[in-house]
């Protein structure tokens, strides 16, 4: 039991006996008996669309609550937190990059990067410099020209938007960054480039990265490849 607690503490994500069904969807959609991601690990999760990737990520983020089972994120059992506390925990500890339309259109690129800092004091407290300065530093590391930062998000190209989203995910060094198909809106060249930048920044910050995609070509750059169907046992268990 002590060992188990220790591995959970050492894990960025530890899932045990998780099941989830969308209300009214009929039938279980996720059944994950055991899945762990160590701290600092860079994991590529592969799964075709509709296989429950986004649902799993929402569960890890604490936006959805599991039907049964246990989800421990960075040592914190999500079930032990109230809904409001889960929202705060997410704000402080998890950065997100989505497939597209990542940004709030009416905010400037800079304000978008700073968004997690507005929802979480913890992220701000982890910074060594004022938040806007850190945002500009990250933007520069991610190849965003300084002039772009004051433009409304809606005026940026898709590639620029994804990099702004990456900066936003990384600001304040969250323990875990979840990237959900972040490159599928980019062409092949820019996919590689974006991945380089993201991986470099996660390394620099020591952040755990869970990268989800249906595109196998990107998996070469990761330490570990996980097939969603391997960890998701829906339909495999004997009934009863």
């Amino acid at each position, binding site marked *: 039991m002590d060992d188990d607690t220790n591995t959970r503490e050492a894990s960025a994500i530890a899932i045990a006996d998780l099941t989830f069904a969308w209300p009214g969807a009929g039938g279980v959609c996720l059944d994950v008996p055991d899945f762990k991601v160590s701290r600092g690990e860079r994991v590529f999760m592969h799964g075709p669309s509709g296989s429950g990737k986004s649902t799993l990520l929402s569960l890890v983020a604490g936006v959805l609550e599991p039907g049964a089972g246990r989800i421990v994120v960075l040592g914190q059992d999500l079930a032990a937190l109230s809904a409001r506390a889960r929202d705060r925990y997410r704000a402080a500890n998890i950065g997100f990059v*989505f497939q597209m339309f990542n940004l709030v259109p009416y905010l400037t690129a800079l304000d978008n990067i700073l*968004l997690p800092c507005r929802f979480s004091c913890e992220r701000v407290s982890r910074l060594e410099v004022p938040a806007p300065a850190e945002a500009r530093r990250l933007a520069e590391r991610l190849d965003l020209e300084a002039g772009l930062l004051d433009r409304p998000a809606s005026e940026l190209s898709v590639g620029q938007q994804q990099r702004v989203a990456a900066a936003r995910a990384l600001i304040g060094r969250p323990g875990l960054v979840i990237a959900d198909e972040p490159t599928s809106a980019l062409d092949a060249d820019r996919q590689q480039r974006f991945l380089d930048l993201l991986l470099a920044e996660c390394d620099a910050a020591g952040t755990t990265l869970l990268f989800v995609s249906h595109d196998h070509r990107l998996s070469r750059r990761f330490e570990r490849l996980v097939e969603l169907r391997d960890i998701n046992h829906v339909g495999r268990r004997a009934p009863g």
Partner: protein
Amino acid sequence: MSVLLHLTLRSIANRRLTVSLTALAIALAVAMLLGVERLRHDAREGFAQTISGTDLIVGARSGAVQLLLYSVFHIGDATNNVSWHSIEAIAEHPQVEWLVPISLGDSHRGFRVVGTSAEFFERYRYGRGREIGFAEGRPFSDLFDTVVGAEVAARFGYRVGQSIVVSHGAGEVAFADHDDRPFTIVGILERTGTPVDRSVFVSLEAIEAIHVDWVGGARIPGVSIPTEQLHRFDLRPKAVTAALVGLNSRVAVFRVQRFVNTYPDEPLMAILPGATLQQLWSVIGVVERALLAVSAIVVLVGLAGLVAVVIASLGERRRELAILRAMGASPAHVFGLLALESALIGLIGCGVGFAMVQSGALLVGPWLEARHGLLLSAGWPSHGEWMLLGAVMSAAFVASLVPGFRAYRYSLADGMSVRI
């Protein structure tokens, strides 16, 4: 909270055209509501103070409202006159300080001619005890002198020294002109916003004089008495239509009223103008309440528009709300974001609406008063207006809960990814 305000302000700034149109619709509705309320208040105030400083109005026995209507507002006609004997008897009552008789029945180009004593201009009060002032000239003193009200003068461009003719009977179509006895305008009154503005004043003796060679509403055929000969006649009035009475002490008002009402020689009645004005207002007050109800409905329509606009925008914003959720926003944040936005638009609408009424009152108020005798005063909101503003803001707040709640439900259902 500050993050919500920041996001809300940015979101509003981003959609400024839709937002300002929505706020404008609400502002116009609020301006209408407040404008009606203010006009209503000022009209009631002005109406209740059409005549003040007069303790009793005496006339032939009829209804109180009827007596008030014909003696003060010059609407309708008296059923009977009051004999001069009775008038003298009342004037001699120890409690009566002053008495101003009024004789109606003639007109000038649609305006009533009021036969009265020169004391009328001293005794008549309106508003909070304001006296009638002379814009030009002086009260009448000679037999064929006349003083005209502000609106009469303005309508026909009369000046002091001009000569006018009065007609027999009241109304636009007079039966016959007293063209043999022209009057000279010696005074023009200041505007009062009361029926005084629409009156032509002559002396009681003049009323007698223009009728010496008349019998039963027509000129006696073949008889024409030259104006120089008039002094031979007894021009004291035989009867008048009504009288305004002022008392030494207001305490005596019911005693004198009883004295008049039980006067043995003639069926007379005395009314308290203030009380009867209230009674009359309660009748015509239905119209103003209906007007207020209509404006309240307009405000509701404006708020419904606000809800519709914000909810319509919600469809496009589901993605944005999902992003905010991922960034750590709680469903309560999402609710607050949309509710705050609607409430702010409603609040801006209220503020702008109030500013519109205020500037409208400042800009158009004087013109309204001059041209239409409608009082529209600028100033801080009255108690009633605060109540209305409060009601509109509460309604806007309640309305804002609708998009807020909808966004809340979306955010629970969507989580971090929009599922449509």
